[in-house]
């Protein structure tokens, strides 16, 4: 008996056959998905009826009973009281306001131009196939904000001497550290040392100028106090020294690169102060979707770097640094955004020295950004924790410094890992911008609310129509962001597997 089965050698290869019908194809799928068990069948029928009912109601409201044209409430009023379908005429009439707020109609091309620039640059970054990612990123994150700011406000910002000095101090520090990082310049060279000390002196003067107010000097059309002037001149001198060093040691293209921070600073100041003949539009005229985007995007842009710093701080082994970051993060995460906005609105101005006043929009952005940064920090910390210890050791064994290790090895991996979390935070932040109405800014939702309180449009169906319109716009943005993040996640995931 055993002998029969014990020895067996296949003689022919069995062909791969198609699966039997019944659990396959259209009917198979339907049966498996809808009518696998009696309970399933009942559920399917109930759900099916519910869906049909829901879809029918939505269609009825949004299309069949809806009013598409009209110039005031009369069009959308239903005879005999009751409420009819959607009042799309209302959306139609107020569309401009929903997008631009009360931005002057003649100047709306400026907003459109910014939107277009944003769309192009963002597409360049977001679509994986488009080349020149690096340049694009610089344009999007460095050039675009300044250009938009000038476009939307009209520019002609007045820089105080202190602000100017600060800009140049930062530029100077970047230049000097750039030059010092070159292998052929040792940081012990006397010129470098002088440059560094000049910067330190400049920074000290800046700090002092906050406490001591001394004299007022006008230099290059800017009003300086004596101390800020000192700081400004010191930073210029440091830049000059660094430039001299750079020129002596390297080729022309190289030193041009080294001087980029200074050139950028000069350009920045010029663009911000120059008169391009744009009519100034104060921020309290901004509103609608445009304002929503401004708050959300600047909040996002500010919260990401801040979140990274906080996350690194929270993982630091220096107890004080860690404690400070923990307290900061837990504080912001523990309170509702509304109270943060109230705080930004009522308390921030009290914190500032006399005479310094913050624009209302800026305050909202500060509040939103700090709030989002705390959440971002936690997301990024999750990413940092997920990086295996071996990566840190590998970098250490290669003698990279702490910041090199973080910047070149750890953060790129950690950030990639938490893209979904970051995008979720972005989505949360985008949705949260709707709260800025609390401090009197008319974002998309705010304008819609003002719209349906407008006596010319008051009908029972306008609020629902307006809110659903706003919901749809928000949904569109958030949903595409989340889909994009899923897409990116998949892409990055497969890119590394073999």
């Amino acid at each position, binding site marked *: 008996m055993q002998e029969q089965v014990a020895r067996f050698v296949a003689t022919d290869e069995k062909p791969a056959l198609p699966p039997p019908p019944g659990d396959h194809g259209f009917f198979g799928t339907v049966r498996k998905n809808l009518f696998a068990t009696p309970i399933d069948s009942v559920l399917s029928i109930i759900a099916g009826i519910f869906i049909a009912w829901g879809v029918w109601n939505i269609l009825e409201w949004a299309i069949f009973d809806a009013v598409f044209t009209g110039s005031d409430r009369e069009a959308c009023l239903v005879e005999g009281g009751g409420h009819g379908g959607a009042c799309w005429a209302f959306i139609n009439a107020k569309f401009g306001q929903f997008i631009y707020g009360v931005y002057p109609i003649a100047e709306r091309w400026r907003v459109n131009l910014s939107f277009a620039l944003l769309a192009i640059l963002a597409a360049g970054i977001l679509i994986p196939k488009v080349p020149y990612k690096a340049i694009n990123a610089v344009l999007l994150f460095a050039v675009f904000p300044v250009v938009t700011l000038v476009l939307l406000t009209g520019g002609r910002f007045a820089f105080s001497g202190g602000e100017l000095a600060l800009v140049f101090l930062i530029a100077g520090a970047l230049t000097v550290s750039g030059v010092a990082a070159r292998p052929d310049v040792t940081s012990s060279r006397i010129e470098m040392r002088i440059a560094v000390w000049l910067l330190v002196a400049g920074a000290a003067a800046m700090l002092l100028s906050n406490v001591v107010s001394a004299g007022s000097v006008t230099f290059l059309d800017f009003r300086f106090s004596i101390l800020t002037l000192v700081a400004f001149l010191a930073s210029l001198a440091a830049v000059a020294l660094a430039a001299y060093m750079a020129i002596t040691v390297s080729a022309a293209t190289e030193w041009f690169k080294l001087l980029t921070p200074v050139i950028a600073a000069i350009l920045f100041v010029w663009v911000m102060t120059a008169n391009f003949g744009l009519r100034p539009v104060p921020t309290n*005229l901004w509103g609608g979707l445009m304002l929503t985007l401004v708050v959300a995007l600047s909040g996002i842009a500010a919260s990401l770097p801040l979140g990274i710093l906080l996350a690194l701080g929270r993982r630091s082994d220096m107890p004080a640094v860690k404690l400070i970051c923990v307290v900061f993060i837990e504080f912001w995460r523990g309170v509702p955004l509304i109270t943060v906005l109230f705080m930004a*609105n009522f308390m921030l101005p*009290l914190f500032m020295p006399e005479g310094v*006043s913050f624009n209302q929009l800026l305050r909202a952005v500060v509040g939103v950004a700090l709030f989002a940064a705390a959440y971002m920090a936690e997301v990024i910390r999750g990413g940092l924790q997920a990086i295996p210890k071996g990566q840190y050791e590998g970098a250490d064994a290669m003698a990279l410094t702490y910041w090199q290790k973080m910047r070149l090895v750890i953060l790129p991996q950690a950030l990639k890992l938490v893209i979904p979390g970051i995008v979720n935070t972005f989505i949360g932040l985008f949705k949260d911008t709707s709260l800025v109405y609390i401090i009197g800014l008319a974002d998309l939702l705010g304008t819609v609310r003002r719209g349906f*309180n407008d006596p010319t449009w*008051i009908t*029972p169906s306008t609020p629902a129509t307006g809110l659903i319109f706003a919901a749809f716009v928000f949904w569109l943005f958030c949903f595409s962001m989340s889909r994009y993040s899923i897409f990116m996640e998949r892409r990055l995931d497969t890119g590394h597997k073999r």
Partner: protein
Amino acid sequence: QTLDTVKERGTLRCGVNTGLPGFASQNDQGEWQGLDVDYCKAIAAAVFGDVSKVQYSPLSAVQRFPALQNNEIDVLARNTTWTMDRDTTLGLAFAGVNYYDGQGFMVKNDLGVTSALELSGATVCVQSGTTTELNLADYFATNNMDYNPVVIESQSDVNSAYDSGRCDVLTTDASGLAASRLEMANPDNHTILPEIISKEPLGPAVRQGDDQWFNVVKWTHYALLNAEELGVTQENVEDMLKSENPEIRRLLGQDKNYGEAIGLDQDWVVNIIKGVGNYGEIFERNIGVNTPLKIQRGQNALWTDGGLQYGMPIR
């Protein structure tokens, strides 16, 4: 110092209501108009001689005081009631009363209510953080009546809650009621009850401790009143410059430079009147009987006409 800052900046920053027809609202072109807005313009005219040099900050009830305290605005002309508390603990200084008001009630006609005393058990819509809210509580308590408060943060939401039937009664300043009625889907369905339950002197306010700026705002107000009293109007102000009446000559700075004393030009009053007209003109243009609000001068008539408006003498 505010005056210097304003001059240096080149514009006056004026806090106004986010939208109260007749007092401060935006027309279809986005231009601001209303009684409070004209006060902003008047001050701008006094300082710059140009009514357009105003930057308006629409403020909600919650935002208005912090905005002033925090230097975001130079003057608050936002139908704000002058109370002792605000004058003292909030650090405000009221420069005068540009509208004598009182709190009233509005109800739907079909309720058949004719007196506020019939309102026991009603649901009342009121804006939060206002003196109105406090008066309401006091009024019902003193008259031993119940009510259900519905307290919402922005006036336009209060109005729409009332209009949609969430409340039976809407309460706010009588002038505000007149304005709110215009915002109803059907203004004719609503009645303003006769009772006025409080004193609501509304006026422009500035920060305490800056007497010069306080004087500018205060005397702009009195200049408007005096101009009306003396019959100086937007139209005839040029001619009036030649007037022999010593009071008019003093008002228009023909005899003595009163402007200098408060840091303004000699012809500051001329600029004001040229820009916005006198108090009566402002009133009639924005809220008077020929406007949709149809408000009588009443208490806001000049003292000479039996009202309360009394311009301090310029001399």
